[in-house]
């Protein structure tokens, strides 16, 4: 009874450097709570104070984005693969985008 959870480089400080760790749970919320018992602090990096998934974190179950599967309530089954990734393709806001100049 295990779900394989792939951890991105920037969060491996919580998993002792492990690229993937096993976890259990019927939903993403359960799984993150389970992971936090062995990898304290990990859940806090993924969930905001208001209890939602962090805007710059994407979580996938079997390659599908959980935000379209019920977010933290997304159902999990034994043998599922969960991938956590940071959202990319941008940078530090410095100017208002879209036709500057003049």
């Amino acid at each position, binding site marked *: 009874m295990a779900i394989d959870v792939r951890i991105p480089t920037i969060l491996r400080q919580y998993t002792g450097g492990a690229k993937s760790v096993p976890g259990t749970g019927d939903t993403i919320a359960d799984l993150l709570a389970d992971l936090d018992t062995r990898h304290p602090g990990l859940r806090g990096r993924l969930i905001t104070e208001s209890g939602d998934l962090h805007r710059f974190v994407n979580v996938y179950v079997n390659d599908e984005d959980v*935000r379209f599967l019920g977010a933290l309530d997304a159902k999990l089954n034994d043998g599922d693969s969960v991938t956590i990734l940071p959202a990319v393709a941008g940078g530090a806001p410095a100017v208002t985008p879209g036709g500057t100049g003049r």
Partner: protein
Amino acid sequence: MARFDNLLEASGGTPLVGLPRLSPSPQVRLWAKLEDRNPTGSVKDRAALFMVRAAEESGALRTGDTILEPTSGNTGIALAMVAKVRGYRLVCVMPENVSGERIQLLRMYGAEIIFSPAQGGSNAAVAMARQIAVEHPDWVLLYQYGNEANARAHYETTGPELLRDLPTLTHFVAGLGTTGTLMGTGRYLREKNPQVQIIAAEPRYGELVYGLRNIDEGYVPELYDASVLNRRFSVGTRDAVLRTRQLVEVEGLFAGFSTGAVAHAALAVAHEAHKAGQRADVAFLAADGGWKYLSTGAYGGTLAEAETALEGQLWA
């Protein structure tokens, strides 16, 4: 009508072709919209043309001006062509880990390139472009990630073309980068048919590309509106290469690796529909051809070798 007054006018109007051998059944059909038939060989010609026209109309861009854009390749190539035709100078900010063909093409069109570090991928290119924009306030940053004309290009052209050619369309699948293609096409198709399924296929790169220092350095393009999408898939390098090769082998379609990623998601939803006994017309967008990626070597050898060849590259 296949006659045009100039090259810019020849963008869009791309063919939608059936893929009968890859389709699960005559009731569940796959279709590819071939965006390599645009003037510079990619879907980005549509966005480049619309963004430049919008900036001209607003008065932000005048003949002889300099356009600045962060791009991993195709948008830069498209903008370089439009800039050439319309009389602008183009400066591209591009990650140093893109394929050599893209750099050669940009230089051939006369564009200037500023390289951003491979680590951080497109994030670093965007951050650097924004910094350069501050230093050169007279340069015009079109900014494809947040420019409404990018999405509007697809709302006004790609969406209507799809529905005209395939009125029975049930699913539309495309790659997720700036999100412009999916936002514009998705909104148009949803307005015409609230039941349509809009599906994103996002490339999942090697770890190098995700080399952020912390989560707060992450970024979601300003154009992105999750409510337009029904589902979103992350497609790894191996699956993208596998499907890219399958498109050539089974259907004779030579496409770039991002198209392989999109085909992977399209096949997944097509087979789901087939299993559920539903009728479906699944159209996906083939963003470019494979020519610019031959130097990666990933079209030959084993899948594992291809995966290694593409490791650390922005293949979409």
